[in-house]
């Protein structure tokens, strides 16, 4: 066991050594900004990994806890003058911690449920049916608060309800457009399939309005990012392989996702997971090359129809999800969609790509910290005076909605594609 984690870290020894400890990551790290202690920031975590490599430190509970203090927002990596990919190194540190100490019991339970696609799907359908018993719906926005204390969920935290019928259950496997020009596979991701089905419906509507057939492969599963960033790389590989095999079974011109993290999984993570398996890597590369985030696909590839857009009179600001802005580097395309909609007044907020604090499962384990980070985002949103926050990630939508309600702000959070859908609908009226 000891040898195994040493090897995990030894692989990245050179990358770790490239960190010259300048501390420029302190300027951009959202967690460091709140807690102001070194283990919070990339430099501190890299120093800890170095200490393990040099034999000065064991992988302890403290090491584990410090590696967990990261929202994987990639701001440090984008800032680093030496090009150190700190976010990936931190995931490697978590991987080493998992190898030595095993997964946290709660994560282990969740991941083993996630591993069984059928059971996972069944559980979330049940949650959609019986959710109203345990959660109280809040008026207006898609939001709910727990009626009872629940393990792993902060008592005051506002989440979104599971859908009574998941997205993929609402449609046939292939949704045909009136005149079909292209055929794309829609990788829905869990958040859109089980929670924000309204985003998925808008993706399908918009693609249809652009004469594109939409295929929703039934057996698709979680993209794997949640397990990957928590250091369970072996499970991430199983998910990647499953999704690749599933989508290979369909004849598709492109694959689209409406979530930065899911898109990044297909484009970057999957090919990176199979470096030691050339045949699998080739298959991952082939699909990665035709995978796009929805706004990127509409602007760069499909050249979306601008003639059919009706007026949507709202003021909108935009939050760029971390994995959109720094993961797949897609920020201009969603703005281009909004700017094409007649009636939309677009107001840029301060630091639109600063992390909202959700950080996937980070906000489950560190809700108070995630709230503090989010409160800054809410202040930036409020100072624009816009009535809608457009974004490109379901989890950002949920966490920002929570923040808006906690801070008594009236804004509504939507996926950018929902506004484009509204514009096409407005024209049809």
């Amino acid at each position, binding site marked *: 066991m000891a040898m195994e984690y040493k090897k995990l870290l030894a692989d990245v020894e050179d990358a770790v050594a490239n960190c010259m400890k*300048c501390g420029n990551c*302190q300027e951009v790290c959202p967690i460091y900004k709140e807690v*102001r202690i070194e283990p919070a920031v990339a430099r501190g975590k890299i120093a800890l990994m170095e200490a393990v490599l040099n034999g000065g430190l064991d992988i302890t509970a403290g090491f584990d806890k410090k590696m967990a203090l990261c929202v994987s927002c990639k701001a440090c990596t984008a800032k680093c003058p030496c090009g150190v990919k700190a976010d990936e190194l931190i995931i490697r540190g978590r991987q080493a911690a998992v190898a030595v100490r095993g997964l946290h019991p709660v994560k282990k339970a969740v991941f083993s449920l996630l591993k069984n696609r059928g059971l996972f799907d069944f559980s979330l359908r049940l949650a959609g049916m019986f959710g109203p018993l345990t959660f109280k719906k809040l008026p207006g926005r898609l939001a709910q608060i727990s009626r009872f204390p629940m393990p792993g969920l902060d008592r005051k935290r506002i989440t979104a309800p599971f859908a009574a019928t998941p997205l993929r259950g609402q449609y046939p496997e292939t949704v045909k457009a009136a005149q079909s020009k292209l055929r794309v596979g829609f990788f829905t991701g869990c958040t859109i399939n089980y929670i924000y089905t309204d985003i998925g419906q808008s993706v399908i509507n918009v693609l249809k309005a652009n004469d594109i057939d939409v295929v929703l492969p039934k057996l698709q599963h979680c993209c794997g990012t949640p397990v990957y960033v928590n250091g369970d790389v072996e499970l991430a590989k199983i998910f990647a392989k499953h999704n690749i095999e599933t989508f290979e079974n369909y004849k598709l011109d492109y694959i689209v996702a409406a979530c930065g993290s899911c898109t990044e999984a297909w484009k970057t993570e999957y090919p990176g997971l199979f470096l030691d398996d050339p045949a699998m890597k080739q298959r991952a590369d082939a699909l990665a090359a035709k995978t796009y985030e929805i706004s990127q696909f509409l602007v760069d590839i499909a050249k979306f129809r601008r003639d059919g857009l009706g007026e949507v009179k709202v003021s909108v600001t935009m939050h760029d999800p971390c994995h959109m802005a720094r993961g797949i580097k897609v920020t201009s395309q969603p703005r281009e969609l909004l700017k094409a909609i007649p009636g939309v007044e677009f107001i840029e907020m301060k630091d639109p790509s600063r992390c909202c604090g959700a950080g996937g499962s980070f906000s489950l384990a560190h809700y108070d910290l995630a709230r503090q980070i989010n409160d800054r985002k809410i202040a930036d949103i409020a100072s624009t005076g816009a009535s809608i926050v457009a974004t490109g990630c379901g989890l950002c939508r949920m966490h920002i909605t929570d923040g808006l309600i906690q801070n008594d702000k009236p804004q509504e959070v939507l996926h950018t594609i929902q506004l484009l859908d509204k514009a096409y609908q407005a024209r049809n009226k």
Partner: protein
Amino acid sequence: MQTHVLTTLQQIVGASYVLAEGTETVTVSPATADEISLVLAFANREKIPVFTDGSPASGILLSLARMNSIVEVDTANLVAVVEPSVTVAALNAELEKHGLMYPPDPGTSPEVTLGETVAANPEGLRGLKYGAAKHYIMGLETILADGRILKTGGKNVKDVAGYDMTKLFTGSQQTLGIATKIIVKLMPAPETKKVLLAFFPSAEDAGKAAAALIAGKTIPAVLEIMAGAVLKAVQTYIPDGLPAEAAASLFLELDGINAAVEKELLKTLSTIEAYRPVAIRTAGDAAGREALWEVRRSVFAALAGNCSAHLIEDLTVPRTRLAEALKAIGTLAGQFDLNISILGHAATGNLLPVFAYDATNPSQTDRIQAARDALFASVRALGGTMNGAPERLESQYGAAGLAAMRAIKRALDPNCILNPGKVTGAC
């Protein structure tokens, strides 16, 4: 680290702010002056050395990172009160809302804090026109080595009773006390700014042009020089076509009232023309200025991109001798076969030669040491000074000067616990 030390420190600042992961150094992050006072009183009793930066082998590493509030911006008295870990950038962002600024710009990193400027007293980028940090620090709250809290100076412009203790602590590298509250003087923000980036065929030409500008009574807010290997590094880092034939550059910012800035720009251009510039770029609007500033700000990042080891010297010569100093550095690079970049605040004659080297190659490190000794001799011959190393203090100030400094150190820190070894070397 001994258990009773850890326990005591945890009692003072809370367990999550004491870190001692497998080392003899314990990092403590207090949140208030009172907590620092307790930490220092304890360290003084136990005779544990306290460091404020670096990676000490053992002792307490005191992080002030949690003390980062802007306590007050007094727009009527043009004064701000800040905690030590407020960054210069954050203070200026806040002051911009009030049409004010804190002029000293250390220019190295956006993370430079006011506390660090008190410790090191940089004159930085705007030194010529606006002066160094010490000209803006009006008062301090300082925790002495034994934990007592000392207040010096204040908001009053005239404040002359007793010794000027604020000046004593400013630039003392936190060897005499730890500043926990800083009162700084503010200035109105200028109405207009213009930026100019000129490239020259040699470092000497750039040095002569800089000296001529100042002799010609142009006072730019910023006048920076960049020469040697760093230009290539920047060209790689920002590939927007810095002219390939350039061996040196001058970076200027002019600021003030619109009409004055326009006039100064014309004068500057005509002065520079005499020194064979290969290209000149100017910018007046915010976006254009930002693009040129990016070239200057990227230098450390660009150098770091090579990621071999770097050693930075810090020397100052009279501005009239700038070209000679630049020539001397160029000669040393050839003589000792070293890769030397030169950055510098030409406005104040302050040059930062950066030696890039391979830390695993002992012959290189030996040659760097020899080159630094030779450089110190040349700088002294030009009437200049070299900062930093305690062993140079005596040759600069004489035995009496060094003895006086050590007497002050011993009076305020009898157990020599605060950043031992810095400034005066031995106590």
